[in-house]
């Protein structure tokens, strides 16, 4: 699929952490077209394997690409007088919730809105306060009796936003964190169809990243790859945020550097980007990256890990904004990098020697 069509499809789908089933099927269909086999692991991560073509005397090596397909969301905590009280799944700024449209996944999907008491009846002291969670309600327009029959405590709620094209090749919508990475991985597989590579590629759409990097941790354990590359979103340049904290939207892949990243892998990625004239930026990360890379790096005996960030504005809102060009570039960079992986690259990364017998 074209990047834009695939992005529209997967970002308008629901897939709150722990409940990724809906989006997973869309991703499965797409990745299956460019890989040799696809499976789902215990926690629900989708793992597509594209085998390398290697002569018999070359040992089997593998790379894992991880982008998480879960999104932040809400869940119902109480039914009260025809309204739903709720809690959050993943990190929200409560201030962006008011006036949002949602889908409550009850006995069926119920469209609804998030509201609070009207400002007309509030005093100025109330209007000067951020509306706290206990004064926000989800309203699906049902009566108390209907609500009781159709919605239960624990039902998941996803935010709703149609995919929107802005000017300058930018697009906006929800769940770009981190479905945009799934689109990058898809692009990578599409490019790889036209390239020769000897390493096996595990393209993984992970789950439950927003609630603790869980899918990456367990899928990496199961796959046991030689190297791992996480693709996640990074804060894009925007008004009111220091340039120190951001990378440029439209500036190309932001290649992470720091304790979470294997220095040789960083070198190999930037060298590939430079060789093929892919515009890219350096993203210094002094500590925990808060991404799947953080989990992958310490799986089993340790995995050389890299992180590529997609510049994204307004993270964890329903108007996350990115450049489609950045997705294309990351897909291309990953494919060219993979096509260039050899036993020499493994040596540079200090990977244990393997015999060619598998």
């Amino acid at each position, binding site marked *: 699929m074209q990047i834009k069509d695939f992005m529209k499809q997967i970002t308008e789908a629901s897939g709150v952490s722990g409940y990724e089933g809906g989006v997973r099927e869309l991703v499965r269909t797409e990745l299956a077209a460019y890989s040799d086999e696809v499976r789902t692991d215990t926690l629900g991560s989708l793992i597509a394997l594209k085998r390398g073509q290697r002569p018999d005397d070359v040992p089997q090596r593998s790379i894992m690409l991880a982008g998480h397909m879960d999104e932040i969301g809400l869940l119902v905590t109480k039914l009260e*007088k025809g*309204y739903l009280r709720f809690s959050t799944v993943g*990190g*929200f*700024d*409560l*201030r*962006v919730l*008011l*006036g*949002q*449209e949602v889908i409550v996944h009850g006995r069926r999907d*119920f*469209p*609804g*809105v998030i*509201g609070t*008491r*009207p*400002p*007309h*009846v509030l005093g100025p002291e109330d*209007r*000067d*306060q*951020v*509306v706290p969670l206990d*004064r926000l*309600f989800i*309203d*699906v*327009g*049902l*009566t108390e*009796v*209907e609500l009781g029959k159709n919605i239960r405590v624990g039902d998941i709620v996803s935010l709703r*936003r*149609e995919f*929107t*094209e*802005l*000017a*300058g090749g*930018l697009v*906006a919508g929800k769940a770009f964190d981190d479905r945009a990475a799934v689109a990058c991985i898809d692009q990578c597989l599409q490019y790889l169809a036209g390239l020769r590579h000897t390493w096996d590629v595990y393209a993984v759409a992970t789950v439950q990243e927003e609630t603790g990097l869980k899918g990456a941790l367990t899928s990496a354990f199961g796959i046991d790859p030689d190297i791992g590359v996480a693709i996640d979103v990074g*804060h894009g340049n*925007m*008004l*009111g*945020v220091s340039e120190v*904290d951001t990378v440029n939207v*439209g500036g190309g892949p932001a290649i992470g550097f720091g304790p979470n990243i294997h220095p040789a892998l960083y070198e190999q990625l930037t060298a590939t980007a430079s060789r093929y004239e892919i515009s890219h930026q350096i993203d210094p990360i002094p500590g925990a990256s*808060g991404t799947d890379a953080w989990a992958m790096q310490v799986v089993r005996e340790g995995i050389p890990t890299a992180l590529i960030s997609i510049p994204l504005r*307004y*993270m*964890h*809102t*329903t*108007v996350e*904004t990115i450049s489609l060009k950045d997705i294309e570039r990351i897909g291309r960079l990953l494919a060219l990098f993979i096509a260039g992986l050899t036993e020499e690259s493994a040596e540079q990364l200090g990977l244990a020697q393997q015999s060619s017998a598998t």
Partner: protein
Amino acid sequence: MLLKELSEAVGVSGHEGAVREVILHAIKARVDEHHVDALGNLIALKKGYGGQRRKVMIAAHMDEVGLMIVRIEKEGSLRFRPVGGIDERVLLAKKVLIGDKKVPGVIGSKPVHLLEPRQRQQVIRVEDMSIDIGASNQEDAANLVKVGDYASFDVAYRVLGGELQAVTGKAFDDRAGCAVLVELLKNTYPFDLYAVFTVEEEVGLRGAKVAAYSVAPDVGFALEGTICDDMPKQKDASPTTVVGKGPAITIMDRSIIADKRLVDLLVTAAEEKRIPYQFKQPGIGGTDAGAMHLSREGVPSVVVAVPARYIHSPVCLLSLKDLRNTVGLMNQALARLDAVDLSR
């Protein structure tokens, strides 16, 4: 359903043309005369039958709250100010459409990851927000939008269903009133009915003021989509109105003390015909009736409203049952209006 078309049309105060087109198309065949006045009010006359005919003005406003672009920053993002009363807390992370070309944009907000805990507790002022249309500099942005362009929320009309027959969409204040008024024009009455679709209610009841002056009615009704406050609250307080409990009749708000005889007319009609109704909690909000009843030497006036949750925010919710009951109640009341003695 006309409400869908009305809700999805864009008509921020001062720029109601698109809404007017939708309404004009719907009522053209139902009225005897219509014209658009200097401010943009659509004034339609449906002649009555009988001899000494009263002039009855029914007003519903076409405009909605929205935004106006006030500056294009050199980075290409747009600064804006609210048009009409908007609680700035509803603005973050919303999609808007700007100008007649409907250029899409989003109101961004600093990611939660980069906020100090204290900052998360601060309401962001509209002066500190901006709209991102994807332009990378001032020049790119200026090719798409200009200072002074209006912007409105981009929200689709949706049917939620259920016993309340709930629907959501933007601008139910007062497209709900417009929808009711369009329905009322299906009938003829023993009086001359001036259906007035007003402008600029949200910035100070300005359209109704001049329209009432030119129509010079004997009786005035304002039809509204009004505030609803029926959700669970910390303290036990009356709801302003409740969705599903029928049309809300105003006794007093911030702009008018309704004419007692008209209130009685509505209540009697409702009770005789078993149409559910409620009184709007006094002292909250204001409507076109506030301007109408003070026109010239004064006009006996009253307000009937469809309760709508979350008005002045991007998405409102109302019950189609309430909407139909409002039409029903008005029909019943208008049929009995001639019998009401309005002399002093």
